[in-house]
């Protein structure tokens, strides 16, 4: 009951913000805000693999691409038809589009999760650098496929995707990935993941099915990466293989590491920071990326464990900080 009330509250707040924000902010700020949300979903989901489980994946852009193209193809060929039918039957526009978007996002996410399962399987036998190379290879394969398959637009990109994703849906995805991560972190399953990260052999010796959990982390993580991809597709209305290069994966890794491996709030903070920063630096013109890189270096030197280390910002944490400050 309490959970239902919480869900209703979140939906309500997101619905109101979805109405208010586009009027309060100019379209540019709105775009940055949306991209922040999508980055948060990417970073928090990658944190499940790289932060919680201690595996090193550098193919997150690949999973994102699977979700983006999968959901976009669905909307172009199926979803758009549904919306036309529903609207001609008198359904309100937002409801028809929302329904079609939800189904498209699920299609993309599930496809990405399946890809995550397939990539997760060989990772059972691989560790560290070797796993990184497998995930890198996966990301590149996906990129090569979408650059060459004509049905998804190949190197021209995929235009005309319905722009159904609005603040409401991005906000909902952010809430979903954070809630799932937090719940996981506080569960037995989460502890199993942490145990694998800290010492895989000891975890195995305690009866943790390390194989199953590593694959599980990959599946959940790539599901949400696919979700982020789907949102990106339906917000941008256009997809191009260049959005899903190796650099995109690195960008997400930078968010997770900068935020502090394993910290959900750290990933959120860093995702926002690393999305806003390049925009805020636009006035520096050609020095923009130089300053951006320098700031990254300085941040990592001054806070080697990441912005938050493996701590979390929560009400409880802030309370403890305050009482510790008084004592």
């Amino acid at each position, binding site marked *: 009951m309490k959970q239902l009330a919480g869900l209703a509250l979140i939906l309500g707040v997101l619905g109101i913000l979805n109405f208010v924000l586009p009027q309060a902010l100019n379209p540019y700020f709105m775009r940055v805000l949306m991209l922040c949300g999508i980055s948060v979903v990417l970073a928090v989901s990658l944190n499940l693999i790289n932060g919680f489980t201690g595996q090193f994946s550098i193919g997150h852009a690949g999973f994102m691409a699977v979700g983006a193209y999968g959901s976009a193809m669905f909307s172009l060929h199926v979803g758009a038809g549904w919306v036309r039918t529903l609207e001609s039957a008198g359904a309100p526009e937002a409801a028809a589009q929302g329904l079609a978007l939800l189904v498209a996002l699920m299609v993309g996410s599930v496809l990405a999760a399946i890809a995550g399962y397939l990539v997760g399987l060989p990772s059972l036998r691989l560790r560290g650098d070797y796993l990184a190379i497998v995930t890198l290879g996966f990301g590149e394969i996906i990129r090569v496929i979408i650059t060459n398959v004509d049905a998804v637009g190949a190197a021209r990109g995929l235009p005309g995707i319905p722009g159904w994703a609005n603040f409401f849906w991005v906000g909902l995805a952010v809430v979903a990935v954070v809630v799932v991560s937090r719940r996981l972190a506080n569960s037995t399953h989460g502890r199993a993941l*942490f145990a694998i990260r800290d*010492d895989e052999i000891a975890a195995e010796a305690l009866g*943790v*099915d390390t194989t199953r959990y590593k694959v599980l982390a990959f599946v959940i993580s790539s599901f949400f990466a696919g979700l982020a991809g789907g949102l990106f597709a339906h917000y941008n209305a256009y997809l191009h293989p260049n959005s899903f290069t190796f650099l995109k994966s690195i960008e997400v890794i930078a968010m997770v590491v900068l935020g502090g491996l394993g910290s959900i709030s750290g990933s959120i903070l860093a995702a926002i920071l690393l999305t806003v920063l390049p925009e805020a630096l636009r006035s520096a013109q050609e020095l923009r990326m130089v300053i951006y890189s320098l700031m990254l270096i300085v941040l990592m030197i001054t806070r080697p464990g990441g912005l938050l280390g*493996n701590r979390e910002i929560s009400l409880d944490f802030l309370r403890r900080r305050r009482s510790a400050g008084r004592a």
Partner: protein
Amino acid sequence: MLEVRDLDVYYGAIHALKGVSVRAESGEIVTLIGANGAGKTTLLRTISGLVPSRAGRITFEGRDITKMPAHEIVGLGISQAPEGRMVFANLTAEVNLELGAYLRRDRAGILEDRERVYTLFPRLKERRRQSAGTLSGGEQQLLPIGRALLWRPRLVLLDEPSLGLAPLLVREIFRTIHQINRGGVTVLLVEQNAHMALSIASRGYVLETGHVRLEDRASALLENPEVKSAYLGG
């Protein structure tokens, strides 16, 4: 209870165990002694399924566990405290302990057993909110033992629990092992501290470069001139 027969284990081209046979009866403390590289740790890890064997057979309570994956072997009631400080450094001492009960679902029983471990190792109770990586070396070494006990095992494999500890703490650890055993748990104990190990064990095996060199009652091994000169310092 546990029977290992003609076990062969290779690490790549290295023949680490050459036809090793060992057994432990219910309620015993059996110790494996031997120098570095004799294969003691390898044997424990093969029993618990962490290292694959090439030939031979391991049975536990009549069941063949030779090819069973590690997490299923734990499920049968064998738990292992791996060598040295195999702790989950970023998790608190308490969570480390509770991970020992990872396969258990009886919350009340887990808490009760956790208290028992705290009674055995009061130091861990003091440090329970600290992350394991910040504990002292000795405290870190207690954690895997406590963790192994939280599973309420019938057989516990202890790998060098006294390694690098102060003499006072060593004695305490051995006393604890004795206590655990009296609680009905069969113990397979790998040790370099041969004197201490043999004095609490009922039987012992001496391993040498992958072979079982000697096998006898512990009291007899303590008196054995060969063992005396090689492992007991005269």
